[in-house]
């Protein structure tokens, strides 16, 4: 099996909400490719359609038209490809990072990472080892048994990143990962994402409207009124 050139391939993706006169085109004819190890931004104002594009790539929001290929697997071609187990694909190929970290409040930092591994059928023992290693590599070794409520914003977001990285996904999708952080923490998170993209050879697609954070990206796509501009 040959090397996969693109981790994400999107071709003429269109998403239309509603029908008839109430139909709204959220994203129109979007085409982009992201290589493994690349950190790419989708930049645009609120309501421009960037989250719609992200959720369509994230196998959450079914595209109306166009194609989506994730890590060499065609997932959408004029709608979802029939017979695909989207949940399994999300588990195995994708990692998600959210604006508000979305850690599970009743799980410790360690358990928040372990849950992603256990869902993907890893044993408790293996999951504990992997999650501990991940968190320690992100300088959170002293926070393993803390609940999210006891973590700072930056720490919580690093735990969320660890969870997203847990299953070594080929694609990481981040929705405004720095929006809830101050500039310093935001920059730290972006630096961490850049490092992880290279180290793990993962494609990272980040939705943001935070112009403070644009420096570290390999490429930036602008989304405006549902149109994608490289």
């Amino acid at each position, binding site marked *: 099996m040959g090397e996969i050139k693109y981790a994400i391939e999107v071709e003429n993706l269109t998403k239309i909400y509603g029908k008839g006169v109430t139909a709204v085109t959220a994203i129109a004819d979007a085409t982009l490719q992201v290589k493994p190890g690349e950190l790419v931004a989708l930049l645009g104002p609120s309501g421009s359609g960037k*989250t719609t594009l*992200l*959720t369509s790539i*994230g196998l*959450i*929001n079914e595209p109306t038209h166009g194609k989506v290929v994730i890590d060499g697997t065609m997932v959408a071609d004029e709608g979802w490809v029939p017979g695909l187990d989207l*949940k*399994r*694909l*999300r*588990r*195995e190929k*994708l990692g*998600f990072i*959210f*604006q*508000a970290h*979305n850690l*599970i*409040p*009743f*799980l410790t930092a360690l*358990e928040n990472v*372990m*849950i*992603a591994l*256990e*869902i*993907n059928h890893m044993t*408790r023992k293996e999951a504990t080892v992997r999650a501990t290693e991940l968190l320690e590599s992100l300088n959170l070794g002293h926070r393993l048994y803390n*609940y999210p409520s006891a973590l700072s914003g930056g720490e919580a977001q690093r735990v969320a990143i660890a*969870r997203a990285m847990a299953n070594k996904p080929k694609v990481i999708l981040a*929705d*405004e990962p720095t*929006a*809830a952080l101050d500039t310093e923490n935001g920059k730290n998170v972006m630096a961490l994402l850049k490092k992880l993209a290279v180290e793990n050879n993962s494609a990272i697609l980040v939705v943001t409207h935070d112009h403070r954070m644009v420096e570290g990206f390999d490429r930036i796509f602008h989304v405006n009124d549902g149109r994608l501009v490289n």
Partner: protein
Amino acid sequence: MNLAIRDIRYHRGRFILTTIGLGLLLGVVISMGGIYRGLSADALAVLESTRADIWVVQQDTNGPFAESSRIPEDSKYRIKSVPGVAEASPLSFQTIQIERQGKPFRFFLIGYDLNGLGGPSEILAGRDIRQKHYEMVVGKSMKMGIGEKIHLGLHDYTIVGITGKVVSSGGDAVAYVSLADAQDIQFKKDNDAIRNDRERIGDNLAGIRILSPVQTKYLKQNIAAISESTHTVNTVVARLMPGANLHEVQERISRWNHFHPISAEEQIRIMTKGMIEKARMQIGLFRVILLVISAVIISLIIYTSTIDKIKVIATLKLIGAQNRVIIGMILQQSLLMGVIAYFIGYGLILLTYEKFPRRIVLEAFDLQVLFVIVIVISMGSSFVGIRKALKVEPAEALGG
């Protein structure tokens, strides 16, 4: 990883308080069942301790418990002479309420033939009644001591023995005296009343001119003796010989005027279907209402807990969690709540049931059925939460 346990551990205060509340509710449900069983047991306690095969009562009545019944004491001889009857004993029943230590003191007094049936079935302390008069055996729940005296009717009675927790169908503790004493307490008139009766009889007889003074005196003595007689009982109970035909004995007695022979089985039916049926239905209805309330409470708790976890559920779905992970979390919480609440309720009643004013009888079968009902309610109640959870879209995890 068990998410249900992790959630409970994190929100343990809320879970403990909710489960204790639910446990109290289930405790009431368990006690209701126990009260119902207790009603049945109380209603049949005297009946069963007597161990009679036939209860002969006044014709056209269902006495002596469900209705009033009076028959002559000497009918025991006729009943004893019926082929197949081994023993026949008269019994007298009356409910007595007196003042004791400034409080109403109520009990059910049984008068029995000291050599016959119907006496106390066990003696926990002291002894049986040995003298024909002024001795008494009381139930343990009357909380009286050996040697204590109690004034009833015209006389004082000394407690000579303590029996077990036999109670009447009304739940009153049972006390025993000799039949003669019970008849005195129930029927004997005081001296003024006796003098008045004798004067009235004398005056009436004096108006009959054809009677000689000797005849008048003789009649006066006899009529007074009849009017002052206390030889009336509420029932005569009979025990049959081994192999005797119950229906034949009943048939023979029922042919006589003034008597109604009721078999022990019929007596049980009269007691359970007649006397406690409404109470049973009432308690049954209460139990159903309380179980519905429990179901509504569990449903509401699980539903609101699911609403609180919408973002968590959406996140789990987004990271690829299978539906069974989410269903398991909700179902296990609901089941844990129901099961723990059940054992809290059960433990509570187990510790307190002897302190209830009425008897609580905890039957293993009732407890097992209730446990299954609680499991079904917990599973059913979690359905609303599961339905809500399954409708949550992974996209709800996105955004602030």
